[in-house]
């Protein structure tokens, strides 16, 4: 399978400190890769580099066959990468309805109105929000807003979707429900995904491979269960304990 996203020696400096340090990884088309790490480990920065909001100081990011950014330069701006993102605070546009939020990206892609409406209706039905199209985000519950955010990300059939701790503020029941929804949607649409979390169970539930970040470096890339018995790795014990 070809790589949908390829990071090659990506380093990001902020105030002289390495926020990402020589990060290399490939995410195959259709694969979901979890990115796990504690606060300040560089998880969100990794997503922002892939999205094109930040250029790496060193190294390169490729999306599909094209080099999207390299060594301080963004060659392909975010709006041309065909990537979607679910933000931690969801970033739903408060002045637009649910329909408006989903329609915005399709309009950018010049999708005809009839097709837009059809795709939005299908997507809203799929995420359990049929009948909510005319509501504004402020009129929805927390769980419904999460569904709008994932629907907005997927409705335009992006090349890849980046998820930045989208479930971090939810209760356990809702988290399980939405995790199941993410998994189903990503699988049935074959969407490449990069899922950032600080919860090892979430990481394992959604992806076969996980990249563990520590102080900006990738300290493990593979199945989380491979870490069992690796007492030589300082971070492994706590992760394995959290997995149960």
């Amino acid at each position, binding site marked *: 399978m070809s790589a949908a996203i390829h990071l090659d020696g990506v380093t990001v400096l902020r105030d002289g400190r390495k926020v990402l340090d020589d990060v290399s990884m490939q995410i195959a088309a259709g694969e979901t890769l979890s990115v796990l790490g504690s606060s300040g480990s560089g998880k969100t920065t990794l997503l922002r580099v892939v999205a*094109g909001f930040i250029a790496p100081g060193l190294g390169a990011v490729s999306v599909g066959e094209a080099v999207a950014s390299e060594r301080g330069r963004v060659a392909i701006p*975010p*709006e041309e990468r065909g990537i979607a*993102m679910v933000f931690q605070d969801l970033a739903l*546009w408060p*002045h637009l309805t649910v329909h408006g939020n989903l329609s915005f990206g399709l309009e950018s892609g010049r999708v005809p109105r009839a097709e837009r409406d059809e795709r939005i209706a299908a997507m809203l039905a799929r995420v359990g929000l049929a009948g909510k199209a005319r509501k504004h985000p402020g009129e929805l519950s927390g769980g419904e807003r999460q569904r709008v955010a994932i629907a907005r990300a997927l409705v335009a059939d992006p090349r890849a979707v980046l998820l930045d701790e989208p479930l971090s503020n939810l209760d356990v029941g809702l988290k399980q429900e939405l995790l199941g929804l993410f998994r189903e949607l990503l699988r049935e649409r074959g969407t490449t995904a990069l899922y950032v979390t600080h919860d090892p169970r979430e990481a394992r539930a959604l992806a076969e491979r996980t990249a563990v970040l520590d102080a900006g470096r990738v300290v493990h890339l593979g199945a989380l269960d491979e870490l069992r018995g690796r007492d030589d790795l300082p971070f492994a014990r706590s992760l394995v304990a959290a997995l149960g």
Partner: protein
Amino acid sequence: MAAGMGWGLALRRREEPLLLVAAGAALAALALLPLVSLAGQLATREALLGASRALSAPRTWALFMSSVGLAAAVTIASLVVGLPLGVLLGRTDIPFRRAALWLHTFPLFLPPFLLALGWFHLLGRGGLAGSAPGARLLFSPVGVVLILALALTPVVTSLVVVGLQAVDPSLEEAALLVAGPRRTSVRILLPLIRPAVALAALVVFSLAFSELGVPMFLRVGVYPAMVFSRLGGVDYAPGEAFALALPLFMVAVALLVVERRAAGRRSFAVLGPRSREVPALRIGRWRPAAIVFAAAAALVPLLPLASLAIRALRGGGFSKLPQWMGTSAWNSLLDAFLAGTLILALAVVIGHAAARRRRGGVGLDALAVLAFVTPATVLGVGLVATWNRPSLQAVYGTSAIVALALAARYGAVGLRTAAVSFSQGSEHHEEAAAIGGARFLRRLGRILVPIHARGLAAAWLLAVVFCLRDLETAVLLYPAGQEPLTVRIFTLEANGPEPVVAALACVQVAMTAAVLAVGSALLFRRKT
């Protein structure tokens, strides 16, 4: 790269920097070109000799130091009153604090010389409560300081109130667990809003230093008045005016440096709404004294306005308004609305760039601040040097020059307000739009402007009321027969009938109140 991908795509990808360059060029033409022209006027041997003569006169520097002293005294007085008042009206449980804040702040939106006129009708020799000592006090440097402090204290009060609203409630609550309200205010809240206080002090100093109307009306010599006198009347000597403007410009640069150091980087972050409400501070046994203090702050500014109205009514001034006012009120509104709209257009682009720390954004913000802290006389002299040419009479000979000058002088007001609004919003809203395929213009039109509509409307309204109150800029540039109301009142004040001048002042007050009332009603209406 551009050749490979085609110019169209290359330009579309650069929408944001290109728009910023265009807005920056417009701002530079408004605010920087006059200063460059001013320097150009002094670039000949004769001009330099004249400048050296003008600047070496002892009276020049005596007047300069006296002006600096006056502005410093006004700033200190404003801080002494405005800081405790801001805490009282912003964070305590005294009654009617919102109404008190509105009444206290209103004079800020009036030309200060109008308040001086009101105090004259109250305390001057023939005033409602007039006496010889009162008149002597009024027509003295102390009178100038008191009137300007009353006019400009609301800058401090309102920035302290807004600054306090932006403080993280948990910081205040953590302090209240171990200290009383007074100690919490002094040791925690006020240090946290230091950038807002620094910004307030800077604004008060620059407005006081630039003030022309109050000292001229009260016959107190100040440096900007000396520059102004070289541009007309018996002292007419434009070459000297250019030279005399130089020290004023140096002060403006010094103020800009202070602003960058004290508040520059944090100045957007210190102003904004709280994440959640916290209970008001209880002031215990100080409550009666605090209520009296707040009531005085709210009611004292109304005294000169009331005396103006009484003077106009007693002399039948209102009935003579049609023959004396001409089109001046309309000119004021037109100039202010044009300038406010131009400022808003620049503020959307530059304010966004400054709030998001885009390359060039912070520099352009600094240029706008420089134009604001540059005394109006200097900017006006520079604008005369730039635009007073036969080929540019289509601009210089019409109201357009006043609107452009106002946009240059008050651009920072709108730009900073817009920047505060943008910086309070989540950057993720823009990023979500970008990643959804929208280029900058579409993000601006569909996401940023609608989300920040209220903040941008506030930027426009503030810019408009600051332009409405202006005298110093317009008085140097207004074309014949098209003077705004402030200039009309100022020029009639010397020789016009007192009741009519008082009635015209009442029109200025009513016009400002109406613009503020309509604007605020639209701004604060509930969303349906």
